[in-house]
């Protein structure tokens, strides 16, 4: 109970400071828009092409946007030695980690939910056909990204070339979840039901989320405290 309250407090603090400054969310959202624009020229897609690559396009956008938000997650605590103060607070390291991860999760999900209709308009994709399964996919994929991303954000916060290292480390580890999310999103956008092959991808995503949540929670104390 106490831990839950600490998690909530950290998440609340992160969200409030983000909503006041809006630096990560603005950067992330405009970056997502720019990438959507570039894609439309890179592929010049017909309706048929778009249906085939919709999931891939969306998740590339989300992965880029996510790296921006996740980079800020721990980097924002570096000025004024806030990170040391946070580590010194009498809460377990995993509560700090989960709080930060949940804040990033909500921010990234918000960016994704705004991008989705814009993507639908730009690329003429009907995204609301299987909305609830799609929402589930977004949530699971984003959870995977924020779990590993927040852990790696903590890992890279004190090293040189922080902004570059995070994506280099994050994307390969994230690959299985991205593969599952991309396939699932493409199929759902094409109006398929959540059955058969799609269940396999869903299981892959859920399994990935469980394994990496457990691993991150177990190792975060080592990363933060040493």
């Amino acid at each position, binding site marked *: 109970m106490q831990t839950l309250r600490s998690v909530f407090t950290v998440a609340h603090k992160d969200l409030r400071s983000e909503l006041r400054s809006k630096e990560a969310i603005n950067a992330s959202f405009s970056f997502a828009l720019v990438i959507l624009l570039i894609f439309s020229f890179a592929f010049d897609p017909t309706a048929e092409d778009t249906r085939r690559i919709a999931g891939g396009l969306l998740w590339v956008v989300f992965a880029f946007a996510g790296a921006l938000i996740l980079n800020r997650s721990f980097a924002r605590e570096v000025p004024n030695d806030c990170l040391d103060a946070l580590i010194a607070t009498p809460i377990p390291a995993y509560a700090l980690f989960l709080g930060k991860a949940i804040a990033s999760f909500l921010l990234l999900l918000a960016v994704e939910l705004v991008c989705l209709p814009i993507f639908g308009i730009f690329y003429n994709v009907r995204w609301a056909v299987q909305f609830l399964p799609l929402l589930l996919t977004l949530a699971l994929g984003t959870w995977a990204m924020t779990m590993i991303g927040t852990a790696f954000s903590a*890992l*890279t916060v*004190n090293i040189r070339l922080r902004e570059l*290292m995070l994506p280099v480390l994050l994307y390969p580890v994230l*690959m299985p979840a991205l593969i599952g999310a991309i396939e699932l999103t493409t199929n759902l956008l094409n109006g398929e039901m959540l059955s058969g092959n799609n269940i396999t991808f869903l299981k892959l995503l859920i399994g990935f989320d469980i*394994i990496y949540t457990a691993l991150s929670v177990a190792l975060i104390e080592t*990363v933060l405290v*040493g």
Partner: protein
Amino acid sequence: MREKAIYFMGTLGVLILMRNLYVILLQLGDEMQQGAIYRIFFFHLPAATTACIMFAIALVASAGFLITRKFAFDTAAAAATEVGFVFATMNMVTGSIWARNIWGIWWTWDARLTSMFILWLLYLGYLIMRPAIEEPTQRATLSAVLSIFAFCDVPIVYYSIQWWRTQHPAPVLTTPGAMDPALWPPLLLNMLAMLLIGLTLMMVRLRQERVLREIDSLRRYAHAI
């Protein structure tokens, strides 16, 4: 003693490899469907097994460091990862050459190839991150954590895609009768030879790291005086 072990293992590995080259190139006949190119298999697969063993050593050493906080484990993890990375590269290059001959393409986004490439990228990230951290304890801790993260990904990638068809052939080692019995001895010996060479390289790297640390501490000592 350690020096002798390094020389011994290296020499043994090279001798076995030379004997194998003779058998593979001159004694074994061409394969029925593939012709001469199938011989690359004797390097392709042992490179993969050696790489996997090295990455497993790195995983164990990383966990060892996190538990004991002894720098010897960190050094071992780094050395094993470096050598494993070289063998993984060798596996992908030979595979690519083979694919060009048999499939007519250098690369395909097949499950096995993709998972190997991801593995390669993960350890590339590890090798890029290490020099970016100045402080030795922090470098060792963060590298160890990253190594554990990286290794956990491999089985996921590998198994998640076994449910789909792949262009890469099914495992020949675990399927009885998939391979001519005459090919087994050179294959197993090549695996041994590559492993010996890998371990030799790893021990050379270990010695380098140890000397490096010694020089570093001497330099600090000199500064202190």
